[in-house]
Every structure is written in structure tokens, then in C-alpha cells.
């Protein structure tokens, strides 16, 4: 691997705008790695929470209570019709002021109980979750009423019907749209930059602020990393889709 570092060092000499500094400098290299790791953690946490929000929201939308349905619809309207970046800033700066503080690990300072990483996860999960509710709702509506009636006639409760019959079928219908939304979610995690979450974009910007010569290579790296991350997600989703395929069902 040493030859890669040498190559990068030599390239920086002859082409000053193409300083792949993180290939030979351990400090910036470490920043990139920790940025990628933070991005992955953010993405996974948001994927999981947004899907949970999607399922719960879709379930509540079918609730007999008008208030609950109105609540879910209000939630969707708010998060779907406002910019996710503004939501993030609002969550962190406005709601962040209202939450209690705890003593930081250093024992001296205090920090809010929900950190900026926490707010990024909450805000992005609610944002993507609003879309997931609609995606799952479309899937649920594709399950024939008669299938639901059959499970009702067998004595299933509403919850059992939802969990064992409606949701497994709805997920299959929803997967292509869900795939799209989750791809968007992974890319939207870069907005956590705005509240100083040390994810990949944040780390990259600190690197090229320190070393302007590393700006182009670092931007290039951003593209490559996101292509790979989204590629892995899409591969996983496609595999899931294939596994869920039922013989003789659907096209």
C-alpha cells in the first residue's frame, strides 16, 4: 500500500490542485474513515427508524379513530411539504433548546441530552418516514379487501391481520418505491453537515478548508463513496425483493 501513498505524494508535486492528501497523510486519512463510518451509522439508524415510522404510520392511518388519522396526515403534510434542511435546523436549534442537559463525559461541561447526531437521526428519520408512510399506505391499499375479510372471518384481530397478512403483502408491493426513498435518505444524510455532525461531507469540508489543494480529489472521493454506499443499499434491496418473491404471485 506504500506505493499508493508515494504515487499520491508525487502527483501532489506535479499537479498542485490534485493533492490526494488522505492517501498519504494519516490525520486526514483518519478523518475520511471516521466520516465514512459516521455516515454509515447515520444512514443505518435513519433507514431503520424511518421504516418503523412508516409501518406505524401506515397502521395508524387505518385506525378507526379520526383523531389518530388526522394526526398522521398532519405529520405527513408537514414533513413532506417543508425542506428537510430547514427541518433539521429547526429540530437542532429550536427543539434542542427545550431538551434537558446532562453532564458531559469530561465531568466539567454540560451537553444536551440529545446530541447533534441524535437530532440528525430524529429529523431525517421523520422526514423519510413521512414518505415511507405514504409508500406503505399505497402497498396496503393494493391488498384486496377480500383477503382482509378472509382473515377477519377466520377470527384474526385487526392487529393480527395487519401483521401477518396485510403488511407482508404490502411490503412486497412497496419495495420498488421504498428502494427509491431509502436511496434518497442515504444521500440526504449529508445535510447533517449543517449541524456539525462529523459525517463524510463535514470531514471533507474541514480537510479542504485546511488544504485547498485537496478540494477536487476530496469531492471526487465523496462521489465515489456515495456511489458505493447507495450501490450496496440497492443491491441489498434487490436481493430482499428477490427473496420475498412468492411463486405464482404478482408479475
Amino acid at each position, binding site marked *: 500500500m506504500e506505493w499508493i501513498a508515494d504515487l499520491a505524494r508525487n502527483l501532489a508535486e506535479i499537479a498542485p490542485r490534485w493533492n490526494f492528501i488522505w492517501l498519504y497523510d494519516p490525520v486526514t486519512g483518519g478523518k475520511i474513515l471516521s466520516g465514512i463510518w459516521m455516515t454509515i451509522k447515520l444512514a443505518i439508524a435513519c433507514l431503520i427508524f424511518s421504516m418503523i415510522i412508516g409501518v406505524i404510520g401506515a397502521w395508524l392511518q387505518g385506525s378507526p379513530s379520526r383523531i389518530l388519522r388526522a394526526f398522521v396526515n398532519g405529520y405527513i403534510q408537514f414533513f413532506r411539504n417543508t425542506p428537510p434542511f430547514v427541518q433539521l435546523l429547526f429540530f437542532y436549534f429550536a427543539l434542542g433548546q427545550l431538551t434537558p442537559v446532562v453532564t458531559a463525559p469530561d465531568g466539567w461541561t454540560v451537553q444536551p441530552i440529545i446530541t447533534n447526531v441524535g437530532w440528525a437521526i430524529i429529523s431525517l428519520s421523520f422526514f423519510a418516514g413521512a414518505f415511507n408512510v405514504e409508500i406503505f399506505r399505497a402497498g396496503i391499499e393494493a391488498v384486496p379487501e377480500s383477503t382482509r375479510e378472509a382473515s*377477519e*372471518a*377466520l377470527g384474526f384481530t385487526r392487529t393480527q391481520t395487519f401483521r*401477518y397478512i396485510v403488511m407482508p403483502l404490502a411490503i412486497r408491493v412497496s419495495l420498488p418505491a421504498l428502494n427509491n426513498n431509502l436511496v434518497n435518505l442515504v444521500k440526504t444524510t449529508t445535510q447533517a453537515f449543517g449541524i456539525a455532525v462529523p459525517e463524510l461531507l463535514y470531514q471533507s469540508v474541514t480537510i479542504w478548508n485546511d488544504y485547498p489543494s485537496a478540494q477536487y480529489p476530496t469531492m471526487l472521493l465523496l462521489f465515489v463513496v456515495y456511489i458505493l454506499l447507495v450501490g450496496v443499499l440497492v443491491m441489498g434491496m434487490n436481493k430482499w425483493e428477490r427473496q420475498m418473491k412468492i411463486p*405464482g*404471485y404478482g408479475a
Partner: protein
Amino acid sequence: MTWTPDQPIISIKDVHKSFGDLEVLKGVSLDVMKGEVICIIGPSGSGKSTLIRCINGLNDVQGGSITVEGIEVHDPDLDKLALRKKVGMVFQQYNLFPHKTALENVMMAPLLVLKRDKAQVEEEARALIKKVRLEGKENSYPGELSGGQQQRTAIARSLAMNPDVMLFDEVTAALDPETVKEVLVTIKDLAAEGMTCILVTHEMGFAKEIADHIYFTDRGVIVEHGPPSTFFERASDPRTREFLSQIL
């Protein structure tokens, strides 16, 4: 009210049901004794499907009363689970769970609703699948089965709950003529074992052969009823005669 076998297992009295402004049932009454096979026939839109859907609470009624083994189905506080343990239902479109195999379709309700032991449920489910002559299809998904096979799976699924009454809602209407017979044979076996059956059907020949009692409905009322022999030979109401002349 406790039910004893000398009383009708199903008792329907003056039942009214409307969908919006459309009155579908305009005062229907009928009694079914345990072990009886009842066929309800009549033109489309006469309310026959709605009537049997009311019996297991899929549709609620607006007037009159329905009791099944003493359970008051018209009661707004009806314990639907108790009712559905007693009443099985088979639909025109089979309505199997497409993501579950034939065996899983049969096992699901006893496992989830009755919370019974899995090994025992599986043994019974395999026996039921054998009974509806689908041995070897246990692990097939509904999409891999023919219409007749799906419908027989649906019958097995309903029987797995060990009901006292079976409702059949035009169960052969979506099948091609060759497969109709295999489903009818299955129902006939059930009837022969003493299962109380209520069938909504257009299969007049089958109704004649299997039914203890035939009800003819038209525009939300029961126009005429009787045992098959008198019903088909000496229908008295002109509406019944007209219907039969078009069908037979």
C-alpha cells in the same frame, strides 16, 4: 341465552340491511337446524350473499336478529371471535393468503387465533389437506394451484378452525366447469358428515341433490322456500317459476 341442539343452530328473524339508500335485505327470516344443508338461490342482487355475510358478522344488520348457537350476532357488543370460532366461511374468490403455502394457510388461524400447539395443528392440517384431496400440494403457494385446488384449500383452511357451521358464498362461481365438480364433491362429503352448511349457489343440480331446504330470494325478501322436491317441481310463486325457467 344458551343454545340446545333441539333449537335452530341459526335463527334469523326479520333482518334488515341497507347500504346507503339501497335496502338489500327487507325483512328476511329463516331457521337452520344442526346438520341441515340450506341452499339460497336467486338472481344477482337479491341479497343472498349479504345475508350469509351477516351471519358471521362481516356485514352488520340494521334491524331484526340473528343468533348462532345462542350468540346474538346483531348485538353491537358482539364477541366476534366467539362467533367466528363457530362459523367458517368460504368465498367466491378463495381469498387464500398468497404469501403462505397451502399448509401454512390451513395452519395459520389455529396457531394465531386459537393459540394451539404447532405439532398438533400441523398434523390436523395435513389430515385436512388429505381430506380435500390435495395431498402433495402442502408446500405449493396459492399462485401455483388451480382455481379448484385453491378453493379446496380455502375449505380446509376454514375447517381447521373446527366450526359448527360452514357458509359457502358462490364458491364455484369463479371456477371452470371441470373444476366445479371437485369442489362440489368436497362440500358433499362435508354435508354427509353432518356439517351444517349454508350455500349461496347457482348450481341448481347440486342444490337439488344436496339441500334439505331451498330458499329463493328476490329483491331482498325470501319469496319461497321448501324441500328440493317440492321447490323445483311445484314452485308456486311466479317469480320463482320465472327464475327457474331461465336456469333449468
